[in-house]
C-alpha cells in the first residue's frame, strides 16, 4: 500500500489544462495545411504525388492559368508528399492541431488570394457551429462505431479517456450502448461488412442525436477510397439506401487525427459566437 502511494506521488498530476494551455506537439507534426498562391504552369507534380486524390484543380482561376490546387482535408492523410513534390513551395503545414469543421465544404483549403509569399500566415480562426448544440453543452455521451479502417483512429479516441486528456472533466464520455448515447462517433471507411451494423447502431441512437466522423477514412474513405470492399466513408454512404437521416455534425480530418484535434473538435460543438 505504501509503495502504491509512493508511486502515486512519483507519477504526479499530468492532466493538461486544455484548452487554456496549448499542447506541446512534435515540431515534425504537420497539422493544418496552409497553401501559398503559386503559378503552376504545366506542373502536375503534386497531383501525381498525392496518394488519395486530395488535391483538386482550383476552379477559380479567372485568367485561366493553373494555380495552386485546392486541398481537401477530408481526403488528406497528411503524408506530406505534395510538399516534397512541389518545386514552388505551395504546400505548407502549420502545426495547428485544431482542424475540426462542421460542414464538408469547410474541409477544402485553398491558397490565400493574395500571393504574398513572405507574409506570415494569419492566426487560424476555428469556425463556429452553424447549429445550436447547447443541449449537449454539459453532458455529451457518444457511442463509438469502428467500421473498417486500421484501428489508429480508435486508439486516438480511446486515449482521450486517459489522464493526460481526461475527457470526462468536460462532461463528454464514450458509452457502451447507442441507447445511452447522444450521438455516434464514426471511424473507418465503412467496410461492406460493417455497413449494416453501423446503420443499425444509428437507428438505435435516440433523437436528438449527432454524428461525428473522425479520420480521413470515415470522411471520404481515405487511403481505402474506391476499394470494392468499402463505401468511401460518409462521402460514399450519403444518399444510399437507409441513410436518409444521416447528417454529419462534425468532421475531424487526419490519418489518424491527433487526439488533441479530436478533443478540440468535440469541444468546438460548444463554441459560441
Amino acid at each position, binding site marked *: 500500500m505504501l*509503495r*502504491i502511494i509512493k*508511486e*502515486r506521488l*512519483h*507519477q504526479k498530476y*499530468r492532466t493538461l489544462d486544455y484548452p487554456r494551455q496549448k499542447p506541446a*506537439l*512534435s*515540431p*515534425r*507534426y504537420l497539422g493544418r495545411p496552409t497553401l501559398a498562391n503559386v503559378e503552376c504552369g504545366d506542373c502536375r507534380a503534386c497531383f*501525381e*504525388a498525392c*496518394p488519395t486524390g486530395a488535391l483538386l484543380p482550383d476552379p477559380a482561376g479567372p485568367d485561366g492559368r493553373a494555380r495552386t490546387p485546392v486541398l481537401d482535408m477530408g481526403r488528406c*492523410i497528411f*503524408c*506530406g*508528399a505534395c510538399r516534397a513534390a512541389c518545386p514552388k513551395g505551395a504546400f505548407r503545414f502549420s502545426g495547428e492541431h485544431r482542424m475540426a469543421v462542421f460542414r464538408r465544404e469547410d474541409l477544402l483549403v485553398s491558397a490565400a488570394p493574395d500571393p504574398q509569399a513572405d507574409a506570415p500566415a494569419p492566426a487560424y480562426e476555428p469556425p463556429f457551429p452553424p447549429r445550436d448544440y447547447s443541449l449537449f453543452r454539459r453532458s455529451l455521451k457518444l*457511442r*463509438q462505431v*469502428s*467500421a*473498417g*479502417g*486500421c*484501428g*489508429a483512429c*480508435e*486508439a*486516438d479516441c*480511446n*486515449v482521450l479517456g*486517459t*489522464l*493526460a486528456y481526461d475527457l470526462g472533466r468536460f462532461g463528454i464520455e*464514450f458509452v*457502451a*450502448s*447507442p441507447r445511452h448515447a447522444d450521438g455516434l462517433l464514426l471511424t*473507418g*471507411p465503412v*467496410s*461492406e*461488412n*460493417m*455497413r*449494416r*451494423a453501423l446503420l443499425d*447502431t444509428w437507428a438505435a441512437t435516440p433523437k436528438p442525436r449527432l454524428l461525428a466522423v473522425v479520420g480521413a477514412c470515415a470522411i471520404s474513405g481515405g*487511403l*481505402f477510397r474506391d*476499394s*470494392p*470492399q*468499402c463505401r468511401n466513408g460518409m462521402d460514399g454512404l450519403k444518399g444510399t439506401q437507409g441513410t436518409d437521416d444521416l447528417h454529419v455534425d462534425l468532421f475531424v480530418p487526419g*490519418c*489518424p487525427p*491527433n*487526439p488533441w484535434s479530436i478533443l478540440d473538435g468535440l469541444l468546438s460543438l460548444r463554441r459560441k459566437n
Partner: protein
Amino acid sequence: MFSFDYRQPADMDSLPLLDAAELRRRVIRAVDGGWRMLAFFGLPETARPGAPAGLCCVLAHDATRTLAALRTPPLEQFPSLTPDCPQAHYFEREMYEQWGLEPVGHPWLKPVRRAPDAEGDGESAAYPFYRADGDEVHEVAVGPVHAGIIEPGHFRFQCYGENVLHLEIALGYQHRGLEAMLAAASAYGPAQTTARRLLLLECAAGDSSVAHATAHCVLWERLTGQDVPERAWLLRRVGLELERLANHCGDLGAIAGDTGFLPTSSWNGRIRGDFLNMTASVCGNRFGRGLLRYGGTAHDLCPEECEDLTTRLRAAGRDARGAVDIMLDAASVRDRLNGTGALNRADARALGLVGVAARACGLPLDARFHAPVSDLPGTEPCLEQSGDVLARALVRSREMDDSLALVEADLSRLAARTGARTAATPPAPPSRLPARKLAVAQVEGWRGEICHLAVTDAEGELLACKIVDPSFHNWPGLALAMRNGQISDFPLCNKSFNLSYCGHDL
C-alpha cells in the same frame, strides 16, 4: 524439400511442381520435424484476374534460419492437411474463401473474413456457428459493435453456467480488400506504386504501422537486392521498439484495468502516450506513419534530438517500470492473472501461435532472434512457461526492459555518428521487380511475427502479395484459451492477447 536462406529470394523455377498429395505428405513431415508454417496460400498461374491457382506453402526452420517452399500446379481441390496439421486449419479456410481451392476433408470449413450477417448474401447469413446442445446450455453473442472503443468482431460463447464450453470468433468486419489493393497499386504508375503500397501497409494494422512498413520494405529490398545503410537500420529499430514499448505498456495497463487495479491502468494510459509522442518526434506521426522508405527512412535525427529522446525515454521507462512493478507485485493482481486463460505448449505449437502468446507458453519464437532483418546486435527471446494471462503479462514486462535498452543504445549510436551518410535520402524505388522470384520478410512486431511474401511472374509483375499478421495465427489461440474458463475471464484473457481485427481481416 527446396530450402533457402531466409534473406535470399528463391527462384520460382527451382521449385518443383508437386502433386497435392505429395505436398501434403512433405509439409506434414516437415511440421512434425520442427518446421513451422509461415504461409499457405493460393498462387495464381498468371497475374490475370481469375487465373487458375495452385497451392504454395512456405515453411520456416527457426533454428537454422532456413525457409522452404513447396507448390503444386493449378487445382480446384486438394486433400486437407488440417486433420494431421492444425497449423493449416486457418490458412485452408482462407484459401477456400479467397481462391476457391477446396480442402477436401477440412473439419471446420467456414468463412474467415466474410461477416456472418453481411447484407445481400444469403449464404453467409446462415453462418454455421457451432452450437452445444443441452438443457442448461446457453449461448452468449457479442458484437460486432462492442461496448468499448474497439474494432468490430463477433464472439459466440456456448456456456454451461459460467463455464465456457466453446468460443467461436467470427471476424471479417474490418475487411478492406487490402491484398487486392496492393495488387492494384501498379495501376497508379511506377512513381506511385511503391509509395502507395507502403502507405497501405502502414494501415494494415494501425498499431503496428512501423512493423508492417518494415516488413514491406525488407521484402522489396530482398527482392531487388537493395542495400540499406546501418543508420537507417538504427532509425527503423528505434521506431519498431518504440512501437513495442507503447503497446506493451498500454496492454499491461489494460490488463491492470480489467483486474480492477486502477493506478497502473491510468498511469500506463499516459505513459503509452509518452512513447507514441516520442515516435512523433522522429517522424511527425504518433504511429510512425511515414518513417520508412524503400532502402532507408524518410527522417533522420541530429545529436540534440537523440539526446532529448534519450532523456524522455529514460523518464518514461522509469515511470512504466514503477507502474508495472507495483501491479505485478500486488498479490491480488497475481492471484487474478495466475492460471487464467492458460494454453499449454503443445497446443500453442500445434496451432502455430507466434509472438507474446507463444513465448508465454515457452516457445522460443522471436523473429528478432531467429530471422533478424539487419546485422545490429539483438536480443534473446523472453520466455515464460505457464501460458496464462500472468505469463503473457510477464513476457511483456520483461520485453519492455529489453526494448528500452535497445532504443537507448541505438539513439547513442545515432548521436555519435552524424558524419555517416544520412539515412533520410533513400534510393529511388525499383521501376520493375526481378522475374520469377519468391521473397519472404519476417519482422517481429510487438504482437508477434509479421510475415510478408511476394511472388513475381516472368514479367516481374506481382503474382501474389501475401500479408500474414500475427493475429491470423493467434485468434484461434484465444478461442482455445477460453475453453473451460469462466466467461467473466474473457475481457482479461482477450486483453492479454490483444489481437488485431484489421490485421486479421486485411
